[in-house]
C-alpha cells in the first residue's frame, strides 16, 4: 500500500497505524522511546522520594502543608477525561472519519490546556503563598523538576497534536498521516500514565504525610 494513495472507506485498512513500512517503524520506535521515558520519569520519582520534605530550616513548608485535594482531584479528572477523548479520536481515525477525529482531538487539546492552566495556577500559588520555590530547598527542586517535567510533556504534547491538526487540516486522512496521529495519541496516553503515579506518589502520599 502506498502512503500517498487516496483512500476510501473500502480501501482504508483495519490497522492504518501499521499499514506501511514507515508506519511499522514509527510504531516500534515510538514504543522504544516510551520505554526510555519510563526510565527517565522513574529516576525523577526516585529523586523526589529521596528528597521529599528535605528542607534546610523548620520555617519551610512540607508536603503535607502544601497540597490541596480539590485542585489535584480536578486536574486528575481533566487529564483522565482527555485520555478518553483521544481514544474517541483514534476510533474515528480507524473508521476513516477525518472530521470527527479532528473534533475529538480538538476537545483533547482544550482539556489539556485547562490542565496546564491549573498547573500554572498551582505553581504560582506555592511560590507566592508558601515561598516554596525551585531553589528554596532540596524538596522544592525535586518537586518542581518532577511535576514540571510532566507539565512540559503536556505542553509538548499539545503543540504536537495542534501542529498535526493544522498541517493535515486540508489533506484529510491518508496512510501517510494516520501513523502520525496514532503516535501522538500514544504519547498523550503516556502522559496520563505518568500523572497517575504523580497524583498517587506526590500528592496523595504527600497528604498522608
Amino acid at each position: 500500500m502506498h502512503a500517498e494513495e487516496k483512500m476510501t472507506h473500502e480501501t482504508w485498512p483495519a490497522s492504518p497505524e501499521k499499514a506501511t513500512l514507515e508506519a511499522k517503524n514509527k510504531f516500534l520506535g515510538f514504543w522504544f522511546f516510551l520505554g526510555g521515558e519510563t526510565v527517565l520519569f522513574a529516576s525523577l520519582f526516585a529523586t523526589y522520594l529521596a528528597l521529599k520534605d528535605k528542607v534546610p530550616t523548620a520555617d519551610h513548608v512540607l508536603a503535607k502543608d502544601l497540597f490541596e485535594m480539590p485542585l489535584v482531584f480536578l486536574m486528575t479528572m481533566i487529564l483522565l477525561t482527555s485520555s478518553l477523548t483521544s481514544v474517541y479520536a483514534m476510533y474515528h481515525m480507524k473508521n476513516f472519519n477525518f472530521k470527527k477525529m479532528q473534533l475529538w482531538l480538538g476537545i483533547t487539546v482544550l482539556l489539556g490546556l485547562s490542565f496546564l492552566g491549573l498547573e500554572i495556577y498551582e505553581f504560582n500559588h506555592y511560590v507566592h503563598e508558601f515561598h516554596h520555590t525551585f531553589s528554596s530547598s532540596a524538596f522544592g527542586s525535586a518537586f518542581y523538576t518532577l511535576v514540571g517535567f510532566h507539565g512540559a510533556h503536556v505542553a509538548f504534547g499539545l503543540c504536537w497534536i495542534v501542529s498535526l491538526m493544522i498541517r493535515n487540516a486540508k489533506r484529510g486522512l491518508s496512510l501517510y498521516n494516520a501513523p502520525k496521529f496514532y503516535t501522538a495519541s500514544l504519547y498523550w496516553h503516556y502522559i496520563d500514565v505518568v500523572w497517575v503515579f504523580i497524583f498517587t506518589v506526590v500528592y496523595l502520599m504527600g497528604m498522608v504525610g
Partner: protein
Amino acid sequence: MANQQSTSGNPRVDLEYRRKKNVEEMRYQVITFALMIFLTLIAFAAVGFGDVSNWFTIPFILLLAVVQVIFQLYYFMHMSHKGHEAPQLFLYSGALVGFLTVLAFMTIIWW
C-alpha cells in the same frame, strides 16, 4: 482480536464487520474509563476520609495506581492487541530499570 485484516473477498461485508468490531472495542474503552474513574475516586477517598493508618493507605493507593496504569496501557494504548510483543518488551524493561532506580534511591542511598 479486533482490527485485523480479514480475508473476505467482499469489501462491503468486511467493512460492516470492522465497523461492528470497532464499536464493540469502543464500548470496552468506555467501560475501562469508568473503572479508571472509580479507582481514582477510591484512592482520593482513602486519603481524604481515611482514618486508616498509613501503613495500609500507602500500599493500597499504590496498588490502585498500578491497576489503573495497566488499564491505560492494555486498553487505551492497545497493548492487549496482537503485534505488541516489542512494545511489551520495551515498556517492561523500562519499568524494571525504573523500579530498581526507585528501590536503590530509597534504600541504599542515604542523604
